[in-house]
C-alpha cells in the first residue's frame, strides 16, 4: 500500500510518515500543494493524507483538481480548522475524511484503514474472529470459546467496531463518534463505562484478556 503525505510542517510530516512506515505502508512526501498535486496525478497511490494550508496551492484546490482529472484516490484532510462549516467545505471538495489538528496518530491510522477498506470495495465481511472470540453480523451472535455471549446494542456496536479494527488502537473520541454519533466530549467518561461493561461480558470469565487499554491513546482488541 502506497500513501502520499502532503504536509508543509516538517515535524508533523515526519511523524506521520514514520508512523505509516512502521504500520507497513510505503510513504511519499510532498511539502507543497503543487508538488502534491503532480505526484497524486502521476503516481498510483492508495490514499493521500492532505494538509489544507499549503504553500503554492492550497489543499482544497489540490483535491478539486485531482477530482477534475478523474483521480479518485481517497483523501484524508488534516486541518487546524474545527468548525462544522470548514468540515463540510472539505468534504464537498471531494475529500473522503476530515481530521482536526491536533490529532492522534492512531486515529489517523484507523481512519486510513477504514478508507482503504471502503475504496478496495471488497465484499463486506459478515464474520470477525479474534482469538477464541467470534462475531457473526448476520445472526448478531457473539461466541467465546463455544459460549454464547449476550450483548446490548451499544455493547455490540462497540465490540463490532473494535473487532473490525482488531489489533489497532481506537481513541475515545472515535468510539464516541462511532458508537453514539456524538462529537462532543461528555464530562463523565461514558466510553470508559461502556468498555468496562463490555469487558465484564467478554473478558471477565476468561484467563486471556482480549480488550486492552492503551493509556493516553485508547482501546484495542487483540490476542495478547
Amino acid at each position, binding site marked *: 500500500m502506497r500513501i502520499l503525505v502532503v504536509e508543509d510542517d516538517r515535524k508533523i510530516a515526519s511523524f506521520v510518515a514514520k508512523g505509516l512506515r512502521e504500520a507497513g505502508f510505503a510513504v511519499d512526501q510532498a511539502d507543497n500543494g503543487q508538488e502534491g498535486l503532480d505526484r497524486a496525478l502521476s503516481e498510483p497511490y492508495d490514499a493521500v493524507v492532505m494538509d489544507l494550508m499549503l504553500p503554492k496551492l492550497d489543499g482544497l484546490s489540490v483535491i478539486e483538481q485531482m477530482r477534475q482529472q478523474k483521480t479518485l484516490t481517497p483523501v484524508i484532510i488534516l486541518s487546524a480548522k474545527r468548525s462544522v462549516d470548514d468540515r463540510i467545505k472539505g468534504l464537498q471538495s471531494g475529500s473522503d475524511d476530515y481530521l482536526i489538528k491536533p490529532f492522534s496518530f492512531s486515529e489517523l491510522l484507523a481512519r486510513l484503514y477504514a478508507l482503504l477498506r471502503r475504496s478496495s470495495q471488497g465484499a463486506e465481511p459478515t464474520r470477525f474472529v479474534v482469538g477464541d472470540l467470534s462475531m457473526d453480523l448476520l445472526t448478531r451472535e457473539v461466541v467465546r470459546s463455544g459460549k454464547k455471549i449476550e450483548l446490548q446494542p451499544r455493547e455490540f456496536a462497540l465490540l463490532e467496531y473494535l473487532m473490525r479494527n482488531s489489533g489497532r488502537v481506537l481513541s475515545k473520541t472515535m468510539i464516541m463518534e462511532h458508537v453514539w454519533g456524538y462529537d*462532543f466530549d461528555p464530562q*463523565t467518561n461514558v466510553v470508559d463505562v461502556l468498555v468496562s461493561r463490555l469487558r465484564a461480558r467478554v473478558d471477565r470469565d476468561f484467563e486471556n484478556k482480549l480488550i486492552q487499554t492503551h493509556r493516553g*491513546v485508547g482501546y484495542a482488541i487483540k490476542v495478547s
Partner: protein
Amino acid sequence: MLSKFLNLVRKSYGVRLAVWYFVIFVVSSLSISIISYVFLSSSLRDNRKAIQTKLQELVSLGQKSGVSAIEQAGNAQTASRRTAFFVRILDRKNQLVFLSHPPLWTKFDVASVRDQPVEGAWQYLTAKGDGDVLEVTSAKLASDYLLQVGRPIEDRTEILEDYRDTILAVTIPMMLIALLGGAVFAFRSVRPIRSLIQTTQSIIETGRMDVRVPETGSGELDELTKLFNRMLARIEGLITGMREALDNVAHDLRTPMTRLRGLAEMGLQGEPGPKQYREALISCVEESDRILILLNSLMDISEAETGTMRLRLETVSVADLIEEIVELYQYVLEQKNISISVECSQTIAIMADRSRLSQVLANLLDNAIKYNSPGGHVSIKVRPERKQMIIVVKDNGVGVPAEEIPKIWDRLHRGDKSRSEPGLGLGLSLVRAIVHAHKGDIDVQSQTGVGSTFTVSLPAIFAPGN
C-alpha cells in the same frame, strides 16, 4: 482645463449628478422649444403646398379650356376666408386682367401690381393696416398671361420669428438655472454620502470603531447611513468579543500548559529508564488531550458569549433529544445505581442547534449524576410555558452551598465538592453560554444535602396540532 474638468466629473459623484441634472434640464427644455418650432414652421409649409396645388390646378384648367375657364373658377370660389384663394391674372405689361378674392380681403391692395412678379418665386403682399401677409406664387399661362395664386399667412411668420428670438433669449438664463439647480440638488443629495466617506476615512485613519455617521431625515441614503451604523456597531461588537475571547483563552491555557511542561520536565529529571519515560509520556499525552478539550470548550464558550457562535438551527423534537441523551448515560446511571424519570410531551419542538442542545442536556445530566450518591434520583421534566419551553433537571445529590451558587457559572470555577471529581470546571459556563446563544435563560436552585434544580427556558415552537 477641459481634461481637468472631465477628470473631476469622473471622480466626484456630486459633480456628475450636477452635470447630469444640467444636461437633462437643458436638453429637455430645448427639445420642447425646437419641437414646437418645427410644428409651427411645418404648418407654414403646408400653406405653400396648398397654394402650389391650386396653382397647378388652375394652370392645367387654363391650358385645357383657356383663360375664361380660370376666371370662371375664380369667381365660383366660396367666400370663406379659410378655403378661398387669391387668384390674379396679369398680361405681359403687368396690367390686371382678372382678380378674384374673398370680399373680406379688402385691406390688401390687391388690385394694383407694385412689384414685378417673378415666375415660380414666392412673393408677399402686405396688408394696409396690420401686419397680415398674403403669400403668393405665380406661373406662366400659355397665352402670355401670368397667373398668380395666393393665401394669407396671417401672423404665423411673425410668431415664428418672435418664438425664435424668445428661445435664444431664455437659453442663457435657463442654463444658469439648470446649473444652479443641479449644483444645489447634487450638494443636497450627496450630503449623507459625504458624511459616510468622512466617517469611513476616520475609522481607517484612527482605527476607532466607535464613531458613527450622523443620521438625518429619511430616504434611501439615510437608510444606508442607518444600516452602515448598524454594521459598524456589529463589527465593533464582534471585534471586542474576539479580543476578549482571545485574552480569556490565552489566560486559561497558561495553567494546563504549565502542568504539561511540568510533567515532561519531571519525566526528564527523574530516574532514567524506559518504564519511567513511558509513564511520563502517557501523562503528557493525557494532559495534552485535556488541553485540547479545554481549548475547544473555551472557544465554544467565548464564541457563544460574544455571539460569534455559528448555530445550525433546525426544528428539534425535545422528547427525542432527551431520550437520546438519557440513553447515552444509561450505563453510567446503572453503574452508579441512580434512577431517572423523564416527563416530556412528544409535541414540543424548538428551533435549536441539535448538537449544541445535546451538549447542554448532556452536561446538565452529567452534573446531576456526578454529584449524586448511589440510590439517588434524577428527574427531567419538560413543559411549555407561554412561548417558552422549560426544561427542569432535578437531582437529590449533594447540592451547592448558597455562597457558591453565583460562582458556578464562572469559567474554570470548581466548587470544593467538585474538586474530587474529574472535569474542567467549564461545563456550566458552556451550558449557560449555549443557552444564551439560543436566546434562552438558565437558573439554578440548590440546597446543600437536598439537591439542585436547573431550569432552562428556551423560546419554543410547537408542533402543528397543538
